Structure formats: structure tokens, C-alpha cells
């Protein structure tokens, strides 16, 4: 039995607050991966997690990240959920020479040399979603979102895609994180009758909005999922229990959905798979980190760009620190997400700069459902 190096890694996931379900899924994925790594005889390291809980309070992320980097030997931190909190910790990483593994979908326009992005960026979630919806439901849309960079930037990109398709944005509203006063959003959608709604609300705002949309659809079939679907790039299985029947028919894009094993599915899933992409992306972050550290003495003290300059980094683009992802579109049917379209291997383009230079990306794999 070879001696295993013990390496501390930081976990920075909120156990409470508006987006606790997502961060708890990420934490679960990271801890499952630690367990898998520590039981893997092919790997010569043992990971020891060091946890801090920012409780969904954006002002706690930077001090807690600094505390991990200062008071422990951990150089790699897995976590943060909102873009706001990710941007908060980057200066702390720069000062202490640390790295963040970020396991959530985000709005792009970032490629920090201190961060590895293991979930999807817009060319991997929003663009496959629009490639699916525009031919089916037209380009007259309503946009709703949480009042911070995720909501704003997703709507801005949607504006671009809708303008390219000669469509129109019929209404657009933002709610502060945690706000559940959705009446005005619903009134505007009911009045303007869009072909679809892009929902970039997070947490309780989103739950209340989807419940109200379900009531609207019950009153008026023009708003049923068949005629006016509600789309999202941040809704996953980890929030379905908060939604109940209101989730039925909702459409979401992401790199993975529970149970999906069709074309382009994530490989190397643990037994039982992932309950959601939020869990899976955190699991894959820790797994990739362990591969990079294993059989490389002192690799834990390398700067991130040096660490990634290795064959084991396969899957992490050295230019952008993002990963190649499948682009899945799924619909909630009978309480679970069913994948309705899959695009394989979408290379990351976090600044949407390469999009116009590629042939229009068409899904080349379609999941056929009876």
C-alpha cells in the first residue's frame, strides 16, 4: 500500500439562505467526490475537506475564503453559488495564491486565471435552449430575472438572440433576491401574451413565480406549457421539491439531468449517478482536481495555470478554464426532468466571441421519446 499525501481542500457552500438548495447540492457532490477519491486505489492522495458556511450572506464569502486560505493548508476551494459571491472571493484568491472551483451555471464574460468553471456558460446553456425554443414558439418573449448580474446578463443575451431572430421582448422585470411579489410580472405576461418566458429568477422568487404561472395556465390555456413554456438555465432537480406540481412542463437547459445516460451524457458518474447538475458539477470539480494532484508530489502548491498545464487537465480548456459540456434541454414531466434534446461536446465560449464565426450550432443529437 503506497503512502497517500493528505491534502486539505476548502468547501464554501451556504447551508441556509435564498439559494440553500443549490449550495447544499453542490456540497453533497463535493463530499461524495472526496469519499470516492479517498477510496480510489489508483490515486495517491487523501483529500481532507475544510468547510465554511457563508449562510447565503454575500458579505461572508470573502472573509471565510480568506480564513480557509490563511488558517489551513488548502489552496483549492470548491464552492460559491451566485456570480456575486464568486466575484467577491476572487480578490481573496489573488492575495493568497488560491484557486476556486466554481460548480454552478453562470452568465459568462469571465475567465479568471484563479477559477475553474465546471458547470455551463451561456453558449452551453442559453444558446442550446434558444435553438430549441425559437423554431417552436417564435421569438416574442417575456424576460424575468433576479436583480443581479445573472438575471441582467441572461436577459441581455436573450435580447441579442431575440433581435437576431427578428422577434420582440414584450415585457421584462427584475425582482430583488428573496422578493416574492410576482404579481406585476404575471400581469405583464398575461397582458402581452408572449410565445415563451425566460425565467432567470433564483430561489423563492422563482418558486413563487412558477406557482403563479401554473395558476395562470390553469385559468387560460394560452399559457399552458405547450403554448407558452417557461424556460430556465438555472432550474434543476435540487429545487423540484420546493415547486411541487407547479414545476410540471417547465423547461430547463443544463449539462446534466438526473438519470440521463443518453447521447453526450457526463462520463465517470458514481454509482447511482447525480441527483442534479449542481451536485454533478461539484463532484466533477473535486474529481478533476484529484486527478491533477495525484502522482505529482507538491502539485498542491502549484499556481492554478501550472497545475492545469498537464495532460490530466483534459476536459479543462487551458485558455478559458471552462469545460466542454453537453447542452441538454429537458422538460419536467410527471415530476422529473426528461431530456428532449441533446447537443454533444459544446466547447466553452464564455465571451460569446466565437459564436458568429462558427456554423450555426444545430443540435446533432436528438433524444427520441415515444
Amino acid at each position: 500500500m503506497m503512502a497517500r499525501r493528505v491534502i486539505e481542500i476548502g468547501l464554501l457552500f451556504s447551508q441556509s439562505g435564498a439559494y440553500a438548495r443549490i449550495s447544499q447540492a453542490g456540497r453533497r457532490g463535493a463530499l461524495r467526490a472526496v469519499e470516492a477519491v479517498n477510496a480510489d486505489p489508483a490515486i495517491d492522495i487523501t483529500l481532507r475537506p475544510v468547510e465554511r458556511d457563508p449562510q447565503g450572506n454575500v458579505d461572508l464569502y470573502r472573509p471565510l475564503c480568506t480564513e480557509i486560505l490563511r488558517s489551513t493548508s488548502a489552496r483549492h476551494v470548491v464552492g460559491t453559488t451566485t456570480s456575486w459571491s464568486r466575484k467577491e472571493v476572487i480578490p481573496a484568491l489573488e492575495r493568497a495564491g488560491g484557486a476556486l472551483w466554481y460548480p454552478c451555471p453562470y452568465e459568462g464574460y469571465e475567465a479568471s486565471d484563479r477559477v475553474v468553471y465546471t458547470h455551463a456558460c451561456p453558449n452551453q446553456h442559453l444558446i442550446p435552449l434558444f435553438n430549441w425554443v425559437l423554431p417552436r414558439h417564435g421569438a416574442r418573449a417575456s424576460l424575468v430575472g433576479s436583480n443581479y448580474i445573472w438575471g441582467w446578463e441572461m436577459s441581455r443575451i436573450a435580447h441579442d438572440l431575440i433581435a437576431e431572430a427578428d422577434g420582440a421582448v414584450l415585457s421584462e422585470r427584475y425582482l430583488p433576491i428573496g422578493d416574492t411579489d410576482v404579481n406585476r410580472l404575471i400581469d405583464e405576461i398575461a397582458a402581452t401574451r408572449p410565445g415563451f418566458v425566460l425565467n432567470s429568477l433564483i430561489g423563492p422568487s422563482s418558486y413563487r413565480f412558477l406557482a403563479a404561472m401554473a395558476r395562470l395556465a390553469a385559468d387560460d390555456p394560452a399559457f399552458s406549457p405547450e403554448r407558452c413554456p417557461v424556460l430556465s438555465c438555472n432550474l434543476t432537480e435540487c429545487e423540484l421539491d420546493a415547486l411541487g406540481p407547479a414545476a410540471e412542463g417547465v423547461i430547463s437547459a443544463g449539462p446534466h439531468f438526473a438519470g440521463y445516460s443518453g447521447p453526450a451524457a457526463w462520463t465517470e458518474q458514481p454509482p447511482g449517478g447525480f441527483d442534479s447538475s449542481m451536485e454533478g458539477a461539484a463532484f466533477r470539480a473535486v474529481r478533476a482536481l484529484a486527478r491533477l494532484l495525484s502522482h505529482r508530489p507538491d502539485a498542491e502548491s502549484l499556481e492554478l495555470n501550472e497545475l492545469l498545464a498537464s495532460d490530466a487537465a483534459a476536459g479543462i480548456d487551458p485558455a478559458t478554464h471552462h469545460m466542454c459540456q453537453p447542452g441538454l434541454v429537458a422538460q419536467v414531466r410527471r415530476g422529473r426532468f426528461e431530456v428532449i434534446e441533446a447537443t454533444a461536446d459544446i466547447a466553452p465560449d464564455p465571451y460569446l466571441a466565437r459564436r458568429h464565426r462558427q456554423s450555426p450550432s444545430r443540435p446533432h443529437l436528438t433524444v427520441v421519446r415515444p
Partner: protein
Amino acid sequence: MSGAGQDRRHRSPPDLGGRRAVILHRPNPTVEALTRQLTAIGLEVAACWPELPATALAADYVFFDADMGHDDQFLWLPGAAPMPLIALIGSEAPGRVAWAMKQGACGQILKPVGDGGVYSALLIAREVFDERAALSAQIADLERRLGARQTVVQAVALLGLHEHGEEHAYNRLRQLAMVWRVPIEDAAHRIVAHGRDPADDSAPPRHRRR
């Protein structure tokens, strides 16, 4: 609840994929950090020092060192760069900032360059450059039209100012400009060059230009 803060006028960001950026700076970590950021965004990057090669004329963006730079490094006169320039400023001394502005810098990044700053500099520089170019074109057009005042007066005289009055003659000029689909000033220029109202071509010229 708020819809405010979001600009309703929608403007797409510029297409940056495959665009060429040239960095005029001695090799050092600033060049590495800039190259990393530009490559991540999707641009093609070339660095050079101490002079710009002729190929830099085809660049879409030029980043230049404001600390050690001088006029002779460029392929164009100060202020006449054919693409947006972005100044790399280390020393914020007024003389160096003034020199960078004289070059026509459309944006700046402070040195040492770290993990960010390039994307917003590209967007701002593109917007500033395009706006300046549009303003320059507008000013040149206005100057040309201002310079054509005398020609317009001459044309109105040729079109019967004395026989039919100012309003009639000016309306005739506008009518011809509309038929020819050219600005009033261009129509006036044609009439003056022709020496009379084209409708009078069967009649002897009223006025012969020397």
C-alpha cells in the same frame, strides 16, 4: 420591483472572436497577462517591441505602452490610428497620460495587468473609436456643406432668382436635388458647373462660366 437600471435601447457587444490584437510592449508579465485575457476572450494576439510591424495596420486593436512609448513607434501620425488604441499605463504622470491621449487612446488599462480589465477596455475602446469616427465624418460633411454656401447662392441665381424671386428659385433647386437624389449642395454644384437650369438646355445660356 424594478425595470429601471436596464437600458431599453439595446446594443449588442462587438464581435470579438478571431479579431486581431497587437500589443506594443516589451516582453514582461504585463504582456503575458494581456495575452492570456485576450486569448480567453477569443482574439488572436501578437506582441512586438520596440516598433509596430507593417502587419499591425491590419490589427483590430492596438495596446501600447504609455510609459516607454514615443511617436516614432507608430505607423501613423499621432491621433490618426486606423483602429482603437488602448494605453497601458504604469506611471500616472500627467505628461505620460497627455502623450497617451495625443496618440488617440480610446481606453486604458493600469499596469501591472492582472486578472481582468481587458474585456471592458475592448468594449469601451470600440465604442469610443466608432463614435469619434462618426463625429469626424459628421463634422467633415457639415464643413463641406458650409463651404458650399457660395455655390448654393450661385445656383439659386442661375435658377431664376431675379426673374421669379428667391422662394421660387430655391424650390427649383430643392426639386432638382430630389430628382437627382443628391444633397442640395451637390445639386447646386452641378447647376453651377452646367451654367444654367437644365430645363433651359434648349435656350441659350444665361451665364457662361469662365
